[in-house]
C-alpha cells in the first residue's frame, strides 16, 4: 500500500512538473493546404526549435481541399492562418475580421498552362476554350484576370467555359480542359514529370502578366491585435518563422527532408518536396516579411474591379508585427 501511494505521489509530481516547464505562449497555425514545402519555413522552424527559442508552443494544422482556413479561425480553431489575400479580404467582408500581419510570399506562384496543340498562344485565343480553375478561395485571381481582359466566364458566346479543376494536372492530360491552373512549385512540377515543358506549353504566369494577387500571407483576427501580449507573441512567431524560411532556403535538402518527416499522411515525397523548396524560394523573401504596399493596392483594386469585395477594406493589414521584428 505504501508503495502504491509513493508511486502515485511520484506520478502526480511528475505530471504537475510537466506543465510548469511549458509556460510558453501556445499558438495554433492553420495552413492553407496539406503539409508540403509551400510551408517549409513554418515546418522547419518547428522542427529546428526556432519557435521554442522564442518561447512559443506552436501547433501546425495541415489544411486540405475542403478546409477553409478563414472558417477555422472564425470558429476559434486557430490563432493564425496562412491564406491568399483575395480569400482573406472576401472573408473580411463576410464578417470574419482578418488582418494581414506579415507577407513572406512576395510573388505569386500561380500560372495557367495550355498545351500548344490546343492552338492557344495568347490571351486572344481563349474564347471558346475550356479553362480549369481551382475554387475554394483560389478562384479570385483567375476571375480578376478574365475581368481585366473582358472575357465572359459564364459559358456564353465569345467567352470561356470554366471548369472546377481537381488539384492535379489530370484535366489537361485527359483533354477535359484546354488550359489548367498550376502552381509553379507544385502542379507545374507534375506537368514537367509528365513530359510537358516550355517547348510544348503556352504559359501564362500571373506575376509576369501583372495579374498576381498576394498569396500565402499570415492573418489573425482583428480583436486579438488590441492585446499587446498577443501582438508580442505574433511578432516572435513571425521572427521565428522567417528564421525558418531563411534556413529552409539555405538548406533545401534538409528542408525537404523535414517536410517529408512532418507530413503525417505519408503523401509527401522527397524529390517533389525538394523541387518545391527550389520553386518557393523564388517567391519568398526570407529577409523581409513586411507587406509590399504596391502589390497590396493592386490586389485590393483587382478585388474591387471584380466586385469580389464591395468597399475598400479599412484596417485589413497591420505593420505592428513586422515593425517590431
Amino acid at each position: 500500500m505504501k508503495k502504491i501511494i509513493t508511486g502515485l505521489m511520484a506520478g502526480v509530481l511528475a505530471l504537475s512538473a510537466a506543465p510548469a516547464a511549458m509556460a510558453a505562449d501556445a499558438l495554433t497555425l492553420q495552413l492553407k493546404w496539406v503539409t508540403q514545402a509551400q510551408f517549409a519555413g513554418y515546418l522547419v522552424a518547428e522542427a529546428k526549435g526556432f519557435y521554442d527559442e522564442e518561447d512559443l508552443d506552436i501547433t501546425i494544422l495541415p489544411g486540405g481541399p475542403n478546409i477553409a482556413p478563414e472558417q477555422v479561425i472564425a470558429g476559434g480553431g486557430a490563432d493564425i492562418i496562412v491564406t491568399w489575400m483575395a480569400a482573406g479580404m472576401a472573408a473580411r467582408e463576410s464578417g470574419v475580421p482578418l488582418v494581414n500581419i506579415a507577407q513572406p510570399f512576395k510573388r505569386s506562384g500561380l500560372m495557367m498552362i495550355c498545351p500548344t496543340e490546343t492552338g492557344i498562344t495568347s490571351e486572344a485565343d481563349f474564347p471558346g476554350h475550356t479553362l480549369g480553375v481551382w475554387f475554394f478561395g483560389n478562384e479570385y485571381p483567375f476571375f480578376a484576370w478574365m475581368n481585366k481582359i473582358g472575357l465572359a466566364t459564364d459559358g456564353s458566346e465569345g467567352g470561356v467555359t470554366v471548369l472546377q479543376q481537381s488539384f492535379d494536372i489530370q484535366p489537361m492530360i485527359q483533354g477535359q480542359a484546354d488550359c489548367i491552373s498550376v502552381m509553379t512549385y507544385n502542379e507545374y512540377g507534375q506537368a514537367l514529370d509528365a513530359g510537358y515543358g516550355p517547348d510544348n506549353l503556352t504559359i501564362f504566369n500571373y506575376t509576369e502578366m501583372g495579374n498576381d494577387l498576394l498569396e500565402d500571407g499570415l492573418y489573425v483576427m482583428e480583436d486579438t491585435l488590441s492585446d499587446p501580449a498577443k501582438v508580442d507573441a505574433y511578432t516572435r512567431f513571425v521572427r521565428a518563422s522567417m528564421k525558418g524560411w531563411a534556413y529552409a532556403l539555405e538548406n533545401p535538402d534538409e528542408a525537404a527532408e523535414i517536410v517529408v518527416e512532418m507530413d503525417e499522411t505519408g503523401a509527401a515525397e522527397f524529390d517533389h518536396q525538394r523541387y518545391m523548396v527550389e520553386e518557393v524560394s523564388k517567391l519568398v523573401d526570407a529577409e523581409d516579411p513586411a507587406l509590399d504596399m504596391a502589390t497590396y493596392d493592386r490586389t485590393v483594386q483587382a478585388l474591387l474591379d471584380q466586385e469580389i469585395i464591395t468597399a475598400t477594406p479599412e484596417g485589413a493589414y497591420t505593420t505592428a508585427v513586422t515593425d517590431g521584428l
Partner: protein
Amino acid sequence: MRLSNLQLYLLLVGGGAAMLGLALSLPTLGNAPLVLIFFVLATLPLFRLAKPLSLWLDGLIAIFGAVALIASLPQGASMPLHHWLALFSAWAFAWLFVERLSAAIRAGTLPETGTSLIIPVIFGLALLAMWEVVTRGANVPAVLLPPPSAIGARMAAETGILWADFVQTFIRSVLPGYAIGCLAGLGVAILVDRSPFLKAGIMPIGNFMSALPIIGIAPIMVMWFGFDWQSKAAVVVAMTFFPMLVNTVAGLNAASVMERDLMRTYAASYWQTLFKLRLPAAGPFIFNALKINSTLALIGAIVAEFFGTPVVGMGFRISTGVGRLAIDLVWAEIAVAAVAGSAFYGVIALIERGVTFWHPSVRGGRA
C-alpha cells in the same frame, strides 16, 4: 380536460420561467415591450392550474413568444438573460400545446384530419424560431451558422442560381442516373433469378460494387465520362443499381409455392407467371428499393459534384460556397436539396400506393 403529469410539469416550467423572466426584466422595464407582454401572458396560466385554459391559448402564447423574441432581437449584441428565459418558456408552451393537442386527438375530442398536420408544422416552426433566436441572440458569427432569415433572404435573392443548380444536379444527373440504375438493377435481377450460374457470379460483384465509397468512384467516373453531368449520372447508376438488384431478387421469391403451382396448373409460361404473379408480388420490394434509391441518388450526385465539375450544380455550390464563406448560400442549397429529395421520395411513395393497392400495408391507408 384534466392535465397529465407531463403537461402539468411543462405548464409549471413554462409559467415559472416566464415569472422569473418578468422579475428579471423589471430593472430594464420598457426596453422590449413585446417580450414583457409575453411574460405577463405566459405567467397567467399558472393561476389556472386547476382548470387549465384551452389548449389553443397555449399554442397562441408560444407563437406570440416566438414573434415577440424575434421582433426584439438586438442588433450586433447578445440578448439579455431574461430573453433566454422567454425563449425557454415559449418552447415549453409549444411543447405543452403539441402534447395537449395529440392527447385531444387520441381522446377523440378533436378530429384527426387537419389537426394532426398542425403538430409537425408547429414542431418545424419551433425549430426555426429557436435557430433564429439562438444564432442572433448569442451573436453567432454568420460564417459558422447563419440565421434562417438570412438563408431565406439569400434564397429569394439567388433564385436564378438555385434553379440552374437544381436543373444541373437533379434533372440532368439524378433522374437519368436513377432511371438507368433502377432499370438495370431490375433487369439483372430477373436474369439472376432465372440462372443459378449468374446468381453465383453477379451477386458477389454487386455486393462489391455497393461497398465502393462514392468519393472513391467519383473521380474515376470523372476520368471516364468527363466533367459534365454524365459522370455524375454514372455515380448515381453505380449507387442505385445494387439496392434494386438485391430487393428485386428477394421480391421475386415473395410469391408462395402454392400460388406458383396454381399458375402451373393454368399452364402459364415462365413469362406469364413472371408478369402476372411474381413481379406484382415483388412490388413492395421493388418500391422499397425505389424509395431507398431516391435519396441515395441525390446524395450520390451532390457528393460526385465535389470532384471536377462545370461551375454549376448543387454539389459544386455547396463545396465552393464554404470556401468563399457564402454559408447562407450553402444552407439555401441544402434546403433546396432537402425539399427536392423529400418530394422525390413522396412521389415514389404515392405511385406505390396506386400500384400496390392490394398490399396490407397500403389497404390500411398508410404507405
